[in-house]
Structure formats: structure tokens, C-alpha cells
């Protein structure tokens, strides 16, 4: 099916792009286009004007600072996958990139696009939730930082206003060594949308006490979720198979999935428990064995 007609604007500066978004009805930023163009072909989105971010060089790349990693919104998933700072300082984001769609899509899809699209099944979200990342929004009115946990509001709904643009993702870096694991279930091994996904990070003492736990899941609720109940089942206790089983059961209890073409409510709730358990077991493996 052909694309609906639209005007394509290609600003060369961020200021110009923000000006267009603030003065134009029904305008939408486009970067890689791997999600938006598919939605438009299906007439699920019909913006009259697309604002191409491809010429805004300052939105692109990974900049390591002392206490945070700043990832430009138009950095592609393929670039994140190869970036040494991401691998060293935010390995769970690299892991999520490694299962993202296919290499062809990863060469175009951007982290900012995946975040802004707001799909409950978006694969960047659980990793960004457990990294406690913030999303930087800019508009002609100014800028604001929104914590990932506050960014997604419903299926394809985010806190971004129509004149705002996601310009960067900011990942705080801590001295704490975190153990992490990412588990994704799709209908096939590659090039699949998540049926359910789980990201976990654990901070364990030398004798195996859990000092910090972050658990997030995707595709089992109207938004990606960070799961306080699962985290509370772990923090302050020695890590154990029993505590992990409780955290996983809490994940299933906190899920409010939907029936769709990929899976049923019951299946998703069963499987998210398994994914959270496997992710926690993997992260804590050396202490448990």
C-alpha cells in the first residue's frame, strides 16, 4: 500500500525543526521511519507534515560524561550495538539492541524514535527503565527532562507534547557494579515484536545480599512497567531462588496484558513470570551457584 501524501520538511538546524513543530498543525518528527512509515501505510497515523531529523547532526551520537551517558535521539540501534561506552556502562541497553528487529531495521531505527513511538512492546523501554534513564524533550518553549518511569502514558501515548521533540536519552552512571539481564520472547528468534520482555538489574554484596533491584517488563500492560513489588521482594534479603520466585510471581500479578495477534492475556501473564525469573536467575547466577 502506498504512503498517504504528506509534506516532507528537512530542516538543517534543531532550532528550525522546533520552530516548524511549534507552528505547524499535524506535524510529526521522522528519523529512521521504521515504525512511523509502517503506521502511515496502515493509515494508523496520518500526519500532514513530516519533519525529517536526518540532517540534525547534533542529535546524533553517544557522548560519555562523568556521571551520565548522553545518547542523541537519532543514534541508530546498530550504532548503539557497536558503541563501546554503551557496552561498558549500560550493557543491558546493548543486550536489548541485540534482539531488536533485524539488522536491516537496526541500521535505520533510532533510540529516540523507539522511545517516542510509545509502543508498550518497544524494546528500548525496559532497559531504559532499569537504567533509570531520563528523556530530554526540547521545544521552542524550552527543555525538560522526564524520567523514563514517567514518560509512557498509554499505548502510543507519551508525555511528549506535539511541539516537543525527544533530543536525547540520559543514562546516569553509578559506581555500583550492577548485574543485569534482558529476556525477550517473540514469535520467532529474529525480526519479531516482543510478546513479552523483561529487564533486570541487581546490586549484590560479596556475601550475596541484594542491596538494589530494578525490574521492568514490556508488552504486558498499556505501557512498559517498572515493577516495585518485584523489586521489594528482593531488596534487603540474601538473593535466593525463593526470593526470585516471589519477584517473578509479583511481576505476573502486576501485569495487565491484552489479547492480540501475538498472544493471549493468560499466555502473556504466564510467560512474563518465566522471563523475569530467568532474567533474575541469570543476573544472580554466580552468587546462586
Amino acid at each position, binding site marked *: *500500500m*502506498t*504512503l*498517504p*501524501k*504528506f*509534506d*516532507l520538511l*528537512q530542516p538543517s538546524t534543531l532550532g528550525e525543526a522546533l520552530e516548524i513543530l511549534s507552528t*505547524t*498543525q*499535524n506535524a510529526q518528527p*521522522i528519523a*529512521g*521511519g*521504521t515504525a512511523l*512509515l*509502517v503506521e502511515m*501505510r496502515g493509515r494508523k497515523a*496520518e*500526519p*500532514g*507534515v*513530516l519533519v*525529517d531529523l*536526518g540532517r540534525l547532526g547534533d542529535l546524533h551520537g553517544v557522548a560519555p560524561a562523568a556521571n551520565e551517558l548522553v545518547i542523541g535521539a537519532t543514534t541508530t540501534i*546498530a550504532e548503539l550495538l557497536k558503541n563501546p561506552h554503551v557496552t561498558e556502562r549500560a550493557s543491558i541497553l546493548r543486550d536489548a539492541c541485540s534482539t531488536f*528487529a*533485524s*539488522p*536491516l*531495521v537496526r*541500521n*535505520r531505527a533510532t533510540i529516540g524514535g523507539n522511545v517516542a513511538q510509545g509502543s508498550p512492546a518497544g524494546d528500548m523501554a525496559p532497559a531504559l527503565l532499569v537504567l533509570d534513564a531520563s528523556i530530554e524533550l526540547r521545544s521552542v518553549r524550552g527543555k525538560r527532562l522526564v524520567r523514563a518511569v514517567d514518560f509512557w502514558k498509554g499505548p502510543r501515548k507519551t508525555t511528549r507534547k506535539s511541539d516537543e521533540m525527544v533530543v536525547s536519552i540520559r543514562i546516569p552512571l553509578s559506581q555500583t557494579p550492577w548485574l543485569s539481564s534482558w529476556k525477550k520472547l517473540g514469535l520467532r*528468534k*529474529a*525480526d519479531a515484536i516482543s510478546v513479552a520482555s523483561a529487564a533486570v538489574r541487581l546490586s549484590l554484596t560479596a556475601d550475596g545480599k541484594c542491596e538494589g533491584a530494578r525490574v521492568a517488563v514490556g508488552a504486558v500492560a498499556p505501557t512498559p512497567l517498572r515493577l516495585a513489588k518485584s523489586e521489594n521482594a528482593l531488596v534487603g534479603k540474601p538473593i535466593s531462588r525463593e526470593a526470585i520466585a516471589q519477584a517473578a510471581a509479583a511481576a505476573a500479578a502486576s501485569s495487565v496484558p491484552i489479547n492480540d495477534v501475538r498472544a493471549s492475556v493468560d499466555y502473556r501473564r504466564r510467560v512474563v513470570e518465566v522471563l523475569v525469573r530467568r532474567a533474575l536467575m541469570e543476573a544472580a547466577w554466580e552468587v546462586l551457584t
Partner: protein
Amino acid sequence: MGGADVSERKITLRVNGRTHEVSLPGHRTLLEALRDLGHTDVKNGCEKGDCGACTVLLNGRAVNSCLVLAWQADGATIVTNSGLGTADDPHPIQTAFADAGAVQCGFCTPGLVLSAKALLDANPNPTEAEIREAISGNLCRCTGYSQIVEAVRLAAVRSLKGSGEASHRGQSATDGSHSPSGSRVTGEVQ
């Protein structure tokens, strides 16, 4: 500015070494532009980025051309399957696809050859897992992928032998150049 009156713009596409200037509106895809220029080796499959039939190399990176707006490729260097080689003068990857029996209906082949090219440019000696990962965005409904994986491995092994490097990673491939047609890669590829 609404979406009703869309204006055309002239862009430059460098395709397989030839420079084209084309005028088209902003909602046309790179896939459409290339096929209109006669590059029908770029196949139109799903138009959703699911099948990889429209794969091209865009500034050296394998992408789905159905999900690139033509204006976004203004000034870019594009390589299609026929830019790698022709029937009279095939690229070694194309020869390997023929030799391994990796082509049945052929619709997926141009895209798979380009994904293989992108892989081997970055990683001349890939494992079977790396090959399967690299072609995971290209669907083939005929072959079951075994011969395709063998073809990529065969192309890699031949290239490494040609450049005097021995291969130790892919235990599954042998050159098979002694059998002119249908040379088989033996081993554990399934």
C-alpha cells in the same frame, strides 16, 4: 502547509556508480524511486520492513529501501544486487549463491546477497550464527535457509582462500571448486 498540495523536488541518487537526478514528491520511498529508474532487481515485497526483498546498501549499510524516503537518500551512494555483478560477470557472493543452490524462486535473492555483502565487508570470516543473524531480516519462503547459509559461508571461504588466509571458524564449509556445478558445502548446517 497541509498535506494536500505536495511539491516535487529534484534529488540526486548515485546508484551502482551512475548518478541520477530525479524529481519526485517527499512521500515517495527510495524503493519506488529505484524501481521507477529501472532498478527492478530491488524487489517490492511487504513494504513494512518485514521481508527484506527491497534491501539496498545505503552508504554501505544494508537497509530496507521501502522504509527510506527518497529525499532522505538525496546525495547518498546506493548499491543494488546488479551493482555487485551481472550474469556475465557475477560477484563472488552471487556465484556462491548459484553454486550452493541457494536460489529457488529468486525473489529474496537480491536482498540476501546484499545482506551477505554487508556482513562479509564487516566480518570476512563469520560463524554460522553470525550469518544467520545477518540475514535475519531477509525472508525466504522456498529454501529453508540452509543453502543460503551455506552460500554465504562458501563465499567467505573462497574469499579467504583467495586472499591466502585459512579459515578455522566455520567448520562446515569446504570450497568444492572441483565440482563445477552444484558444489556442496558439507557439514552441520541445517
